[in-house]
């Protein structure tokens, strides 16, 4: 193994969090930073000609190569797990920018009580309401701790939307259930499609509170505080699973990379896969990695920042032997616990009278209601806790993945009758999406698989996860509400989803897998403190949704960016000056 010259900071992963921390450290301190990204180099200009549905949306050319590494899956903490052999229920990114390149860029904040989920639930409903076997905890931070960092992240990416709660005052047109914002959005809301506007009118008529989807796609030209200028969206419809052709969608390559490439103190190395965090006792020494040619390196560093996306963060700790692996049988150990994967279901599929022109739009534009999110409605007499958002988003529908949806009366799946119906309904079908909280359970966790290996010979990560009655009841409730709204939207026919059964590795759920290296109040039950600092190995920091102990219904990236900013401040203002515990 080749030993490289020491660096002050080594960052594992070149996505949103890794590049944001590298930018903050490089522009606010004199320290040297090495960023190791295992995928290829990417730049915003690369996407100018890539509106190809087949390669991007069907073959998933921006995603992790599963022939090299995947995960295994089982439902309960015993027995053999089975490898997920092709991309399905989630789509990990690969290459500079990570999944932040191909994301849909929906940009909602978490409901404010999520950070104190255990206390707030018990306060309102007592200790009996949370289901048996839950692992719900408080995060150790509150809305007030994170809000200033949400505001900072809003400016970085140029969030588009309308405030519903400005410093405690409810404002018309926004989400009245959101936590108090210190500032209005930097940009006005995006335009919405015809179908989203039908959802807006229908939910309003039913007495709910529709508001424009918060978006990390620019509604108009914007220059951020770093001087990065980007244009507004053209509504071409090629957003999620693509890179943005014009950089209206915020991506690490168009928001962070241009700054980083000017910094002499930052080296971004592509095709460098970190295999271990090297450590002596409670001191991280750097990382071991392998490059594209198979050459192995040791990169010594004073500080290690683990920013490798949820599943890789947990896997690297387990492979490196840092921290005690969680054991669901005893409840002991911390690494791997509180694995969650956002509940997501089509609340209703609507067959409409008029053409919808679904090809135009933007994945993050649309209309949402939060009337049934979190604890925004009374759960005393319903058989589940928490809830989620209903949304009609403007993702451009492309024909390979969309063609063939026909009303249930059409039984054929091929041939003339099916084709006739599929052609007729092609642009008359729309969906109401539901995105719900997935509470943590004692038996949903991560560890290393004893059988299956990656292409380098390291054990794959094993997911032990399944849905519980709380999620099944929540989806049942969502499909009832979905049907109610669909009727108010004037649908000619409505299809509601089948009951939520077992976790399904085939169906795209979301890429919002969270937990595994969670933050908390004590080293007994968490991996990092609420600054992202490892409890024992204090020169190791973990950033990303892996540190979230409970999962919100909201897309996690705004919270991920806010927590990354918070860690950056703690590092630069305190840790680098006086290394030690930030507690």
């Amino acid at each position, binding site marked *: 193994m080749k030993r490289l010259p020491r660096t002050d900071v080594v960052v594992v992963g070149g996505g949103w969090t890794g590049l944001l921390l590298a930018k903050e450290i490089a522009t606010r301190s004199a320290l040297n930073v090495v960023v190791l990204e295992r995928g290829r180099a990417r730049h915003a200009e690369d996407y100018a000609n890539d509106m190809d549905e087949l390669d991007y949306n069907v*073959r998933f050319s921006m995603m992790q190569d599963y*022939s090299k590494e995947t995960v295994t899956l089982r439902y309960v903490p015993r027995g053999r797990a089975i490898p997920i052999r092709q991309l399905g229920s989630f789509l990990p990114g690969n290459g500079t920018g990570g999944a932040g390149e191909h994301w849909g860029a929906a940009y909602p904040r978490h409901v404010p009580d999520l950070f104190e989920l255990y206390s707030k639930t018990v306060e309102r409903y007592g200790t009996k309401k949370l289901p048996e076997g839950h692992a719900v905890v408080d995060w150790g931070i509150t809305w007030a701790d994170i809000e200033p960092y949400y505001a900072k992240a809003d400016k970085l990416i140029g969030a588009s939307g309308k405030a519903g709660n400005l410093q405690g005052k409810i404002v018309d047109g926004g989400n009245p259930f959101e936590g108090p914002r210190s500032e209005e959005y930097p940009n006005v809301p995006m335009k919405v499609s015809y179908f989203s506007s039908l959802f807006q009118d229908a939910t309003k008529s039913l007495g709910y509170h529709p508001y424009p989807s918060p978006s990390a796609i620019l509604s108009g030209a914007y220059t951020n505080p770093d001087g990065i200028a980007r244009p507004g969206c053209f509504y071409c419809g090629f957003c999620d699973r693509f890179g943005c052709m014009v950089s209206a969608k915020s991506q690490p390559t168009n928001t962070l990379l241009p700054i980083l490439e000017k910094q002499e103190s930052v080296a971004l190395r592509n095709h460098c896969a970190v295999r271990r965090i090297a450590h002596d006792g409670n001191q991280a020494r750097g990382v071991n990695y392998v490059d594209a040619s198979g050459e192995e390196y040791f990169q010594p560093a004073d500080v290690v920042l683990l920013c490798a996306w949820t599943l890789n963060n947990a896997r690297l700790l387990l492979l490196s032997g840092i921290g005690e692996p969680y054991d669901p049988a005893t409840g002991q150990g911390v690494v791997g616990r509180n694995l969650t994967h956002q509940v997501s279901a089509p609340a209703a599929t609507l067959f409409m009278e008029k053409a919808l022109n679904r*090809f135009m739009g933007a994945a993050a534009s649309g209309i949402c209601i939060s009337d049934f999110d979190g604890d925004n409605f009374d759960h005393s007499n319903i058989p589940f806790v928490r809830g989620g958002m209903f949304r009609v988003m403007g993702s451009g529908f492309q024909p390979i993945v969309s063609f063939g949806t026909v009303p249930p009366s059409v039984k054929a799946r091929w041939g003339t009758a099916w084709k006739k119906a599929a052609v007729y309904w092609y642009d008359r079908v729309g969906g109401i999406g539901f995105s719900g909280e997935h509470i943590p359970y004692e038996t949903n966790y991560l560890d290393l698989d004893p059988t299956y290996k990656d292409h380098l010979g390291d054990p794959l990560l094993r997911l032990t996860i399944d849905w519980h009655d709380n999620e099944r009841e929540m989806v049942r409730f969502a499909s009832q509400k979905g049907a109610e709204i669909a009727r108010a939207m004037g649908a000619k026919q409505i299809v509601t989803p089948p009951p939520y059964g077992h976790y399904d590795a085939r169906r795209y759920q979301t890429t919002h897998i969270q937990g595994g290296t969670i933050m908390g109040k004590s080293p007994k039950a968490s991996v990092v403190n609420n600054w992202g600092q490892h409890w024992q190995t204090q020169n190791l920091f973990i950033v990303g949704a892996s540190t979230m102990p409970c999962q919100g219904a909201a897309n996690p990236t705004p919270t991920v960016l806010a927590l990354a900013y918070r860690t950056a401040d703690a590092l630069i203002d305190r840790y680098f000056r006086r290394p030690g515990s930030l507690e």
Partner: protein
Amino acid sequence: MYSLDRQPLRLSAQKAKTVKIPLRFFTEQEALIVAAAASRIIPSDETGPGAHEAGVVIYIDRQLAGPWGRDARRYTQEPFDDQAAAEFGYQGAASPQRIYRDGLKQLVGFDQLPPLEQDAKLVQIEQSVFFELLRRNTIEGMFCDPLHGGNLDLVGWQIIGFPGPRMNNANEIDRYQGQEFRPRPVSLADLRLKPHRPSEDEAT
């Protein structure tokens, strides 16, 4: 040749012309069977052109010869567990190339049968992994960008009114609320950007 309002948008050059295109994966016999089967999945009928006019067989041939056909991005380490519940996704050892090669053996002579008998034959294999793949690939070949070999003359996009990679809808999203908006389709080649290299042409 068709649009949703039945007005011709573009004319296809294929009528009454035979074009020979070298095959990358199929034998000629296999290609005739796949072309015939794809034409039963998306037939050419009163709803407009089908898999035949779109050149779906050429698309499938190229895909099978490329990285997808060889399972280049699927996790293929043993042991394989064929008994796994459906929720775990396809767990077989066979690559798409293998699935086609084996599946086509069940359809020897298929291209010589009359349409009704062809349909009956497809009903027999409807539940197989092979048919599922064939159906999916037929849809892909019907609606992909023509640079992949299918959707010839944009016939797939024309019958459903999909405009392809149209760059700017910023005004139209406001203007067309509840009325059909059917701009003339464009392909990636029409955008005259630097050419996108399709994944199936990656070096082996």
